[in-house]
């Protein structure tokens, strides 16, 4: 009976209330997924979430104050492929409500101040162009200035954004240089790798965390699986380039399900958080209250 009801419901429910899980292939009730931070109640599959949603699930409620929100991408090369880059940018902006793939600012995790950045996989696959690179560098500098941990969440499956040419490649060097300075300042940098993180993003900022964790079953690698398959002309091993694969090979510290990420990072900050001096804390507090930024 319940089974029948289920079937009838599936076919009758207006689309939008149900969705097909990419993990187990089952039709699942959207509300159930949303109640579990956008993970599948049956198989634990982690659905991609927007930058705004990531802020909500990672930081303390209402603690986020966005910085550098007005940085806009520029079509420096005037790149026109089958589709013009400027057109692609506008479409991504309209679809996501973001100006570019990264959202960043100040926030708190269990009451402890952090600089936070997330790249949204829905914006040209979260790829890194000049704006993403600039925001990462600014965050690293801000974190070093304030002596506050920097937490970055990567959904950069697109690697370096090819429409910005060699300038996007140079963001790898720029972000790495800024993070190296942060490291030398003795301030924690923690990275959460989510589905997907590839190429130039992984070969720079996304893989340079003092602590690096990943959500379960995320695709994480340097070269895309399609290109590798074409090159080696054989099927790839099962589970290749997943979080579990990286854990086994020793490249990440832990796999952490979405619901556990906030407490996990909170613990790491307790061990590794560089505490701001009183003066800095007062400055941060004052400017945050006054919304001076």
């Amino acid at each position, binding site marked *: 009976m319940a089974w029948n009801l289920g079937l009838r419901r599936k076919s009758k429910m207006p689309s939008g209330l149900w969705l097909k899980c990419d993990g187990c292939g089952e039709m699942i009730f959207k509300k159930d997924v949303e109640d579990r931070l956008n993970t599948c109640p049956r198989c634990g599959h982690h659905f991609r979430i927007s930058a705004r949603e990531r802020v909500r699930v990672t930081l303390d409620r209402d603690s986020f104050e966005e910085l550098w929100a007005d*940085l*806009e*991408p*520029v079509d*420096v*090369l005037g*790149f*026109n*492929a*089958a*589709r013009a880059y400027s057109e692609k940018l506008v479409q991504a902006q309209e679809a996501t409500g973001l100006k570019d793939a990264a959202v960043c600012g100040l926030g708190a995790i269990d009451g402890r101040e952090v600089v936070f950045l997330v790249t949204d996989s829905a914006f040209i696959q979260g790829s890194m*162009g*000049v*704006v993403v*690179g*600039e925001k990462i*560098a600014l965050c690293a500098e801000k974190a070093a200035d304030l002596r506050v941990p920097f937490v970055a969440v990567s959904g950069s499956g697109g690697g*370096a*954004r*090819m*429409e*910005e*040419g*060699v*300038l*996007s*490649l*140079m*963001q*790898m*060097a*720029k972000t*790495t*240089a*800024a*993070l*190296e*300075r942060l490291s*030398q300042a003795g301030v924690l940098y923690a990275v959460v790798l989510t589905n997907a993180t590839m*190429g*130039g993003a*992984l*070969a*720079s900022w996304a*893989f*340079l965390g003092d602590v690096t964790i990943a959500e379960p079953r995320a695709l994480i*690698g*340097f*070269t895309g699986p399609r*290109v*590798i398959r074409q*090159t*080696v002309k054989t099927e*790839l*091993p099962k589970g*290749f*380039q997943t979080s579990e694969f990286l854990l086994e*090979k020793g*490249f990440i510290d832990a796999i952490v399900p979405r619901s556990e990420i906030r407490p996990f990072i909170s613990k790491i900050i307790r061990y590794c958080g560089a505490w701001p001096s009183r003066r800095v804390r007062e400055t941060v507090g004052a400017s945050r209250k006054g919304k001076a930024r």
Partner: protein
Amino acid sequence: MAQTDVLQFEKPILEIDAKVKKLEEFALEKGLDVSMEVGHLRRRQEILIRTIFAGLTAWDKVALARHPMRPQTSDYVEMIAEDFVELHGDKAFGDDQAILAGFGTISGEKTMIVGHRKGRSTAERLQCNFGMANPEGYRKAHGKMKLAEKFGVPVLTMINTPGANPGVGAEERGQAKAIAESIRIMTSLRVPVICCVIGEGGSGGALGIGVGDRLLMMEHSYYSVISPEGCAAILWKDGAMADKAAEALKLTAQDLMTLKVADEVIPEPLGGAHRNPRGAAESLKEAYLRNLRELRPVPADRLIARRYENLRRFGKP
């Protein structure tokens, strides 16, 4: 693109080479003086080369950068460095043949030279994996750079790779991590670091030995975020549109000057480095020594601070 020793647009140039050769053989046989005729042919050839090269597309430039006869890292080492001591493995996994590293003396200047090695014969090319390095290659590269730093020896890198190796083993051994580490180490090396793209600057695999105080580019080299073929396959859904992608990516040495990413273009002999490798090597040596003279007196802290400022300005929105 098939591997041939002659590019399509070079054919008329080589026809004149052949004519000159024939003429000289004939003259030798008959005991004639043909210097006037040869001189005339060479002058015509010069004009021809200038004309052809003025009209090269970005895609032609990519072909030149990949020219099988083009001098490679090992050739330059032989031509500009004395007392070269090759240093092999990464001290962790293996010795990647796609990276060549060692101490050499360039006009009296002790230098750590690190470059991609492509190989020339089929056997060599396979051994070097066509210049596509694995993680152990990048670990070898930054290991040797750290060694140089310890003893105050400046670093010269020669970039010439289609890209980092796309393979199962490369992923298993942490390709992205190895490249990220190389970049990280190069941002903070306390010795002058001069990077030169001698042929292909293929994306992250190039940048893995490409961060320093100066970025020099040989006149007919390219540097790109992705190969034109890869870009075409993704953005045009057609790998055959590589010429269009090459144009759009703005990847030539001259484009990189316009974009203020490269600091200097090193002029190549007429017709490209492969027509006169010694001439190309002389230009590279001169540029290296001149840049080193400028960087040498800068205190290490200032050097690193400047390197940072330089990287920081890339694409400032």
